[in-house]
């Protein structure tokens, strides 16, 4: 980012938009004074209250996207107190501030409650409480709701608004999902990818003038929803997997009641439900990665093709053409140092010919817009690119069943609609897709059938 001229008045609530890579996060980090002088280059000046941001630490509070990475201490009260301690606030006043902050953000748990027992939405509100206790004049939020389920999104949004109203603090928030914030901010600023400002003004104004273009660049604008794919008529369905009295869980204890289900070809099955209900565990169990606690996952002869009827006993290589799994965090799946090599892992394990392998890889690179990144390191890709790559690695071995865990988490609308189109085509062509998702719009658009875990 360069050439940005922007003035934010005290007490304003600003929603910052722009396509991925426009430097929004960097800008927020700079505002919060956590970008060191040794991290990259800078030109021009950035002042908060007329001073260098690093000198204003504590006057500016930052909330980031990942709930797990900003919980600092083990107990709720201590975590909220952490900022105050660093600012040298006297002990008695710290605890007054801690209680007041928790009240304001509406987190009604004991001070000695373990922070790891909180839900994602609660963790984000905890981070907000920690910021609030420092009594900041400016609060910056970097996609604070991107990793949350719908209930968590509302929780966090409402807490931010309450805080803004009670304290009069200036708010700057970056988020792809405009509808969450458009009614509660009083200014929208759109940043250009190269630098500078494209649009700046009242939300309704900016969104009506720039909405269409922003939507095309991946920003979620309620008036311009991403396109849904056209569905084709599908062929005859047959059973691929059967869950028989299936009990699933991470340890020996089962989560929920025994589960019966047939997984069909040409079918998209969505697994939904609140955090902690065991959606991911069920998906991994159906995917032949976790052993059932009780009951069984049975593969039909058509799917097993000689590999035995229990996917959990299949060899790792036997899974490849039968059941592919895309994990929630793409980084858990990456094995190599280039995008192309990453796509070759599966085909190589199947001992495909070099020609066949490069055909498949090239086709996937183009189809998922990764061709320009073929030599890039997977870990350096953007969130959307990582997600597309992790899906592509599973598709490279053409599994009959594809299991995905929260495929649309934190994705911009462009990647979202591409993923949707891709999965819809797979289903129409005869594959079975099983997707764990909080994303109601995604489930609506794709799923033929839904399992709701309580």
């Amino acid at each position, binding site marked *: 980012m360069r050439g940005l001229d922007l003035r934010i008045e005290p007490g304003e609530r600003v929603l910052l938009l722009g396509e991925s890579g426009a430097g929004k996060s960097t800008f927020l980090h700079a505002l919060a004074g956590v970008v060191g002088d040794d991290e990259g280059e800078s030109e021009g000046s950035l002042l908060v209250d007329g001073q260098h941001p690093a000198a204003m630490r504590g006057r500016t509070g930052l909330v980031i996207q990942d709930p797990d990475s900003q919980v600092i201490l083990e107990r709720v*009260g201590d975590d909220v107190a952490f900022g105050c301690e*660093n600012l040298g606030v006297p002990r008695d006043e710290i605890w007054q501030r801690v209680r007041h902050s928790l009240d304001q953000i509406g987190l009604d748990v004991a001070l000695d409650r373990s922070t790891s027992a909180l839900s994602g939405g609660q963790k984000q509100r905890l*981070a907000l409480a920690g910021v609030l206790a420092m009594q900041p004049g400016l609060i910056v939020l970097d996609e604070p709701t991107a990793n949350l389920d719908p209930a968590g999104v509302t929780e966090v949004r409402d807490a931010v608004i309450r805080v803004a109203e009670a304290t009069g603090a200036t708010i700057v928030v970056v988020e792809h999902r405009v509808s969450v914030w458009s009614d509660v901010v009083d200014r929208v600023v759109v940043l250009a990818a190269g630098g500078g400002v494209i649009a700046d003004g009242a939300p309704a104004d900016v969104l009506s003038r720039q909405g269409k273009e922003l939507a095309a660049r991946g920003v979620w604008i309620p008036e311009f929803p991403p396109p849904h794919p056209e569905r084709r008529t599908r062929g005859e369905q047959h059973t691929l997997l059967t869950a028989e009295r299936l009990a699933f869980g991470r340890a020996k204890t089962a989560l929920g009641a025994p589960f019966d289900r047939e997984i069909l070809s040409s079918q998209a099955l969505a697994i939904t439900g609140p955090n902690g209900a065991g959606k991911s565990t069920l998906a991994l169990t159906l995917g032949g990665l976790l052993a059932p606690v009780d009951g069984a996952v049975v593969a039909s002869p058509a799917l097993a093709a000689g590999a035995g009827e229990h996917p959990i006993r299949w060899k790792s290589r036997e899974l490849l053409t039968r059941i592919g799994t895309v994990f929630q965090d793409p980084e858990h799946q990456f094995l190599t140092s280039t995008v192309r090599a990453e796509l070759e892992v599966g085909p190589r394990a199947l001992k495909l010919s070099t020609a066949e392998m490069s055909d498949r890889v090239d086709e996937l690179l183009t189809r998922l817009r990764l061709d320009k990144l073929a030599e890039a390191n997977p870990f350096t890709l953007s969130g959307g690119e990582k997600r597309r790559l992790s899906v592509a690695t599973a598709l490279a071995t053409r599994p009959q069943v594809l299991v995905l865990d929260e495929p649309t988490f934190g994705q911009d609308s462009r990647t979202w609609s591409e993923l949707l189109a891709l999965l819809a085509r797979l289903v129409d062509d005869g594959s079975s897709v099983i997707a764990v998702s909080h994303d109601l719009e995604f489930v609506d658009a794709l799923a033929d059938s839904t399992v709701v875990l309580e």
Partner: protein
Amino acid sequence: MIPIAAVNPVAKLGAGLIVSLFLIVTIDWVSATTALVLELVIIAFMGIEPKRFWLRTLPVWIAAPLTALTILLYGRYEGEVYFEFLLISISDGSIELALATFLRVLAIGLPAVVLFISIDPTDFADGLAQRLRFPDRFVLGALAAVRMVGLFLEDWRSLELARRARGVADRGRLRRLAGQAFALLVLSIRRGSKLSIAMEARGFGGSQQRTWARESRWGAAEWLTLLVGLLVGITATVVAVLTGSWNLIVN
């Protein structure tokens, strides 16, 4: 019952260290037995659930006989010899030394484990920083890192499952584990840097003198804990000296 959980962790650490100091300067079975008996009596009054006690101290119960066995086979060659084979020899000397070592590992290991199972990391960090004046940055950095261990375990599990899903889990287990360990390292560095941004954004590492929301208390209970450690050590030494079995290890 002794309310040991409420005692400042620094005092518990201190008591454990004091007992060990007395026990590592000598190597005889009398001092170790005396210390062990006293410790077991004290532990019995701490009200630890038996299942928890055995589970947590299991490593000590395994380590003690293993160490003793090594000494039995390779230890001091002295007195009557009962068995000899290549470098292995069992003699009066090695038997006595093995017994002394067995008791010593228990006498040092058991109280250390028992004192530590009741330590809360946050209280321990508070104690280190406020009582022993360890640097804030070091203590709080370490504390935050401890909290991430749970996340690392989850990451490790996911990495393992992901390798199976990618079709590479059938062969080359050693190489795969090495790759997995490297991936975990990369992930933990990323998590660590995000965490440090979150900490910095809350004013951590600034020039401002830090205050502490929780006071690390130090009073009669803490002095008493240290005193008990001292008494156990002294009693063990005195008994050993009186029975003539105390032997300074440097000799």
